[in-house]
């Protein structure tokens, strides 16, 4: 047992020592300790260094608002994180903790030289210098500033841990497990409502954990707490969640929670997630987050050993730790007096209680006198002594605004209390408004925007009795709001310490306040003089003050500094604090790991990989894949020794001379059904559909309202009221949602139903002169002959025994069929045709060959040859526009002046002067290659390949006035070389379309 640990006291397990390391040194704590409480039990106050001045710092709080005691925590490779709050991290045997932002050592840090130069490093100093010479900013100044900034070191190894997430609906979500939250949870849960109670601490209980002397309904506080938790724990409608932080409060009563699951365990189960993100949608939310104690602002208020009085109280009662041997208390609020009394009772010598208020409750001063404690009312603190640990404090009398001569009071702990700030961060996330309450000297909730109740200290009600009563009332109101009325209970509390206090700015001093290191934001080293400087420089909005000084922007997000900063700024502005107002609180309530936010979405689960039924076959064949939207598609099927070009050339040759198979299952498919299906398609697509016969299909072109091409695909008519619409692979979801949008908002009168069937059909494209020969033997119920089933036909039939929709379409220019079968039969159909195809020299071809084959024919790929700026006329697809149609999406835009003006970029073919040169896709085209940069560009290459069938390179391009430039020579300037190209039509291969008929099957 160490000198500062009180045997048997607190809620830790004194029988279970736990060892961990701090800066390499083994420290022994007890099960239930935090790093901070364990270090303090060993007399260690120095835990970190500040951001700018590298000043020595210790824990100033005992909770999640800690700005100073930030440490690096680690447990093996990949499991290390910076900026962990020592006051929240529970100790375990695998924990290695390290101090941060110091070199070479925590006790001796070279960076502390900044502290000596602190007058130079005033607020915003960096805006005023580092500008000369200009080039020094990038090379000298900024690297220096960056090296000095930052707190911990970022992890460098991938994190091996798992993170989880869940959704939850409940009737009442109670945030905060102190007396108010417990009473609210009990009141609501007893009505049978589904209740969730969350608390960020390892133990639920809040302030009750630090006030064991209380007697509630005749029971000692800790017994009452145990009974309350037992009652809640036994109810099936209640979920108790310790170590869970409500991070953000969103629209429609959605609250995000982050639950810490393994960081406190020495040996976590291998498959346990480290943290879990909960998205809770609550009928009612009760915010019972209590209040956060305010530091006092005086010269040297940041030395290790200076901490909030409530923190000392917590370390004493929860962890059985004395924070020093000889303490001075400085306060403007009654609550610190009680801390002094508790510490005195635990054997800490209280050298003095310094209270700025001239008049303090006589009961407190009498009690102090009885305990032999010097009560210095009407006194201020003007300085502290000690470097790595506070060793003394300068105390001065204050009378009529004048500060008298000071004397040094030796101490090894200085406990401060500037009153309490209601914790309303979550409430502020909802854009609920706050109003200044003069009586409680705090901002309190004003106008609510969500279905929530605020209870206890959050409403400025001090003391446990008030918190319990108010919590029960809030719980009952929440229950009533969801239709479960109940009467709130009452509580009898003995030993309560409600207290009052005074809201102050900096403590009065006899020294030059312009040189004082009186910290407002500890971590960011923002002092009162910085805030006054900001105001002097014209930063009159509190947001400007914040941004100019960085006060409130440290990892505690202003939990300790906001009100002090506001009071000082308001004083400097000579305006009342409520007029100056607060900065907006932003989520998360406390820093939240990226891992928890990312959850399951990592590696293969970051986004689904959509695979077709034929994908495993392709993988087994050694296909090389490419991502297309969320799909992976076989790009080509290399044989041993083949590179992409060789494989693609072989695949294309098979299609042009024999037969090839292509997995087209990723094509988007939408079933458009209903009496008004034709009308609907007439309005959506540019083409006419009314006269399309059943059993026929047609290429369809979809525009945006702006007249530009958005999607295309073949649409087949299966019945008068039923169409099978295909879309591009990447456009499927977008097209469906556009269709639904029009159907639901513009044309609700149409009787049409849309169903996505993309994943219901597997599609095998069989293309090539021998396609019919291969396919015909497997088709039942349909004559595949040219006469009976011509190009652009569709029919329902049976293929290889599977029910099928068979399309006669071609994206290659060869005789082609696309066989749609229910997805579950896709693989079997593919393999059946593959086997049979061997006799025909069949090849499986991938997307690369598909792209090349269609480019030889001049067929566009939306998104490659168009980019959202291309009209049907530009793409040479005017034929696809139903001229007689009264309207279709985008029609009116096609006649806009700049759409019909000359000089638009139009799709053309390009043939390079040197047939072996394959242009780069994306390369720019100019008319005059000798002009200087910036050049006048008149177009770009959209598609470019080496064509085996043509024995040369081919390209498609969008070129200004391209349709009028046939035969012209243009130029493609590349680094080092400019290629001359000739403008041609887009159809390079079989312009007559003779090959679409393929070979007839011999009778």
């Amino acid at each position, binding site marked *: 047992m160490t000198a500062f640990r009180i045997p048997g006291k607190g809620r830790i397990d004194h029988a279970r020592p736990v060892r961990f390391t701090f800066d390499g040194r083994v420290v022994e704590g007890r099960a239930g300790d935090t790093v901070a409480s364990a270090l303090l039990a060993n007399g260690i106050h120095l835990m970190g260094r500040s951001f700018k001045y590298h000043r020595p710092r210790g824990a100033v709080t005992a909770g999640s608002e800690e700005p100073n005691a930030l440490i690096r925590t680690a447990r093996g490779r990949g499991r290390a994180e910076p900026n962990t709050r020592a006051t929240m991290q529970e100790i375990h045997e695998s924990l290695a903790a390290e101090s941060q932002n110091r070199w070479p050592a925590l006790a001796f840090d070279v960076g502390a030289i900044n502290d000596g130069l602190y007058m130079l490093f005033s607020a915003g100093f960096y805006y005023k210098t580092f500008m*000369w010479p200009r080039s020094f900013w990038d090379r000298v100044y900024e690297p220096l500033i960056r090296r000095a900034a930052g707190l911990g070191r970022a992890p460098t190894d991938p994190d091996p841990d798992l993170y989880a997430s869940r959704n939850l609906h409940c009737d009442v979500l109670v945030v905060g497990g102190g007396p108010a939250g417990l009473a609210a949870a009990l009141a609501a849960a007893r009505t049978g409502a589904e209740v969730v109670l969350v608390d960020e601490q390892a133990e639920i209980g809040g302030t009750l954990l630090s006030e064991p002397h209380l007697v509630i309904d005749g029971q000692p506080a800790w017994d009452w707490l145990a009974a309350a938790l037992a009652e809640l724990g036994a109810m099936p409608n209640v979920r108790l969640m310790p170590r869970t932080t409500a991070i953000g409060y969103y629209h429609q009563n959605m609250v995000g929670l982050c639950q810490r699951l393994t960081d406190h365990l020495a040996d976590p189960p291998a498959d346990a997630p480290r943290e879990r993100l909960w998205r809770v949608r609550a009928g009612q939310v009760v915010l019972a987050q209590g209040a956060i104690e305010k530091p006092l602002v005086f010269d040297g208020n940041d030395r290790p050993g200076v901490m909030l009085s409530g923190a000392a109280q917590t370390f004493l009662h929860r962890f059985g730790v004395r924070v020093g041997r000889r303490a001075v208390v400085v306060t403007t609020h009654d609550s610190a007096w009680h801390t002094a009394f508790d510490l005195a009772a635990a054997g800490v010598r209280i050298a003095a209680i310094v209270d700025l208020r001239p008049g303090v409750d006589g009961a407190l001063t009498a009690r102090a006198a009885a305990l032999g404690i010097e009560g210095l009312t009407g006194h201020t603190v003007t300085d502290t002594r000690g470097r790595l640990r506070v060793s003394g404090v300068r105390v001065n009398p204050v009378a009529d605004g004048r500060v008298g001569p000071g004397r040094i009071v030796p101490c090894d702990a200085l406990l401060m209390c500037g009153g309490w700030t209601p914790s309303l961060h979550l409430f502020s996330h909802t854009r609920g408004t706050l109003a200044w309450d003069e009586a409680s000297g705090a901002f309190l909730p004003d106008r609510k925007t969500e279905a929530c109740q605020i209870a206890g200290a959050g409403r400025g009600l001090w003391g446990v009795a008030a918190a319990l009563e108010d919590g029960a009332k809030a719980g009952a109101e929440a229950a009533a709001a969801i239709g479960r009325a109940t009467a709130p209970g009452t509580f009898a509390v003995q030993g309560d310490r409600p207290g009052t206090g005074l809201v102050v700015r900096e403590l009065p001093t006899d020294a030059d306040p312009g040189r004082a290191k009186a910290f407002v934001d500890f971590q960011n080293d923002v002092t009162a003089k910085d805030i006054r400087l900001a105001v002097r420089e014209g930063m009159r909005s509190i947001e400007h003050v914040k941004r100019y000084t960085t006060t409130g922007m440290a990892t505690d997000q202003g939990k300790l500094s906001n009100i002090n900063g506001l009071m000082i700024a308001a004083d400097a502005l000579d305006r009342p604090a409520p007029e100056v107002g607060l900065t907006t609180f932003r989520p998360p309530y406390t820093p939240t790991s990226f891992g928890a936010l990312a959850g399951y979405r990592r590696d293969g689960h970051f986004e689904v990989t959509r695979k077709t039924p034929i994908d495993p076959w392709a993988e087994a064949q050694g296909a090389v894949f490419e991502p297309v939207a969320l799909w992976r598609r076989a790009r080509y099927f290399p044989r041993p020794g083949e590179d992409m070009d060789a494989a693609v050339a072989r695949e294309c040759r098979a299609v042009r001379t024999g037969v090839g198979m292509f997995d087209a299952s990723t094509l988007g498919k939408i079933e458009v059904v209903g009496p008004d299906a034709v009308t609907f398609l007439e309005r959506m697509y540019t083409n006419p559909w009314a006269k399309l016969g059943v059993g026929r299909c047609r290429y369809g072109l979809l525009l945006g309202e702006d007249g530009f091409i958005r999607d295309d695909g073949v649409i087949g008519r299966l019945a008068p009221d039923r169409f099978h619409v295909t879309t591009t692979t990447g456009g499927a979801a977008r097209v469906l949602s556009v269709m639904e949008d029009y159907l639901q908002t513009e044309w609700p009168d149409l009787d049409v139903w849309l169903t996505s069937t993309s994943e219901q059909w597997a599609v095998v494209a069989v293309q090539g002169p021998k396609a019919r020969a291969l396919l015909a033997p497997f088709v039942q119920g349909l004559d595949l002959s040219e006469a009976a089933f011509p190009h652009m036909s569709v029919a329902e039939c049976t293929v290889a025994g599977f029910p099928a929709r068979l399309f006669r379409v071609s994206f290659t220019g060869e005789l082609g069929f696309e066989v749609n079968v229910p997805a579950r039969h896709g693989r079997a159909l593919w393999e059946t045709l593959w086997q049979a195809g061997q006799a025909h020299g069949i090849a499986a071809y991938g997307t690369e060959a598909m792209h090349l084959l269609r480019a030889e024919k001049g067929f566009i790929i939306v998104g490659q040859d168009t980019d959202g700026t291309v009209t049907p006329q530009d793409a040479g697809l005017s034929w696809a526009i139903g001229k007689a149609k009264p309207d279709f999406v985008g029609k009116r835009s096609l006649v806009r002046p700049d759409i019909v003006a000359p000089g638009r970029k139009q799709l053309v073919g390009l043939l390079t002067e040197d047939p072996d040169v394959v242009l780069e896709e994306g390369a720019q085209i100019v008319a005059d290659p000798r002009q200087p940069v910036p050049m006048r560009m008149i177009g770009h290459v959209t598609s470019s390949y080496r064509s085996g069938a043509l024995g040369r390179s081919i390209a498609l391009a969008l070129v200004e006035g391209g349709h009028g430039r046939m035969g012209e020579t243009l130029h493609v300037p590349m680094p080092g070389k400019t290629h001359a190209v000739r403008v041609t039509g887009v159809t390079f291969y079989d312009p007559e379309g003779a090959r679409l008929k393929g070979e007839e099957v011999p009778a």
Partner: protein
Amino acid sequence: MTHFSARSLLKNALSGHKDWPAQWPESQPKAEYDVVIVGAGGHGLGAAYYLASQHGITNVAVIDKGWLGGGNTGRNTTIIRSNYLYDESARLYDHALDLWDNLSQELNYNVMYSRRGVMMLAHSVHDEQSFQRHIHSNRLNGVDNCWLTPAEAKAFCPPLDITARRRFPVVGAALQRRAGTARHDAVAWGYARGAAARGVDIIQNCPVTAIRRGPDGAVTGVETAKGFIRAKKVAVSAAGSTSVVLQSAGLRMPLESYPLQALVSEPVKPCFPCVVMSNTVHAYISQSDKGELVIGSGTDQYVSYSQRGGLPLIEHTVAAICEVFPMFRRMRMLRKWGGIVDVTPDRSPILGKLPVKGLYVNCGWGTGGFKATPGAGHLLAWTVAKDEPHPINAPFTLERFTTGRLIDEAAAAAVAH
């Protein structure tokens, strides 16, 4: 205006920083100005600064409903680049980049423009085609942009995971070395200080409730919370609120306002040397001078004027960052926030005259307005002063949405930034 320098800083340090003057005074509106600019963001303040410094027009008021620089100027992720596809955009953003180069010196205010390089990741053949198109176009336009192989990308940004294990492996990247970041608040403050020193009134916390027009249709002034202010020229530069302000002048703007969220991590020592963007995974990231990782992505999916935004988008954004940089999973999000961005149908801004005499607009910058700040301010000032657009902003008319001459940057890149 006190000149800022190491010397003046030292002198004031010795005297306890008691003698620094206000960087701009707290102004109350006069009855009449030559020009009223609605919106005291970087663009509006920049316009006022250039009106005063380059066109000799100093009887100018910049009016804002809140505090200056409090809208998207103070909420963005500070990325500056100019590697846009179309000639019009490339000229517009490169013009801004030229002004960024010397902005700290021009304003005598360190805006911390950091040429860290912006690298855009390609994850598919389609990305590569699109980026190459940008690179080729930029090369012939004289705009800095080059292609990197995955190994070169990793050398430029060591935290990048280029292994094939990733769901979207990196197949290459486009790098603009001259691009980077700047300190957003300082840009607003620097322009405010420079404008105020030249006589411009900056009027904060004064909502403009209506734009008034006379019987001839021309602008006569603005109604504000502090009364009517006469002005024959009014320029609206109010980002997400532009459509609301201009409605009062009888103009319906082709704008949609969306929440755009961003977040920062806790500050850490330098670990990330540049800006990385990925349109495929939908996220971008850099590290601020303070050490925070600054992260953003696309807009929320719904239109809104609420500067809040939802949790799902943040989850997805952070997941995207961790997918590309798996070592950051144990970093923590410190703060997230939202701004309201005004988006045009072609994702390019509207900067020029409106069909109302004396009325000018600078809006529609969507998710990418910060990078244009000096350029937009400069061009808006020119347009207002001369009552005609500068050749650079001449194509960015309102009329293009009627005539069809769009400048569609979104068309070539799924997310415009």
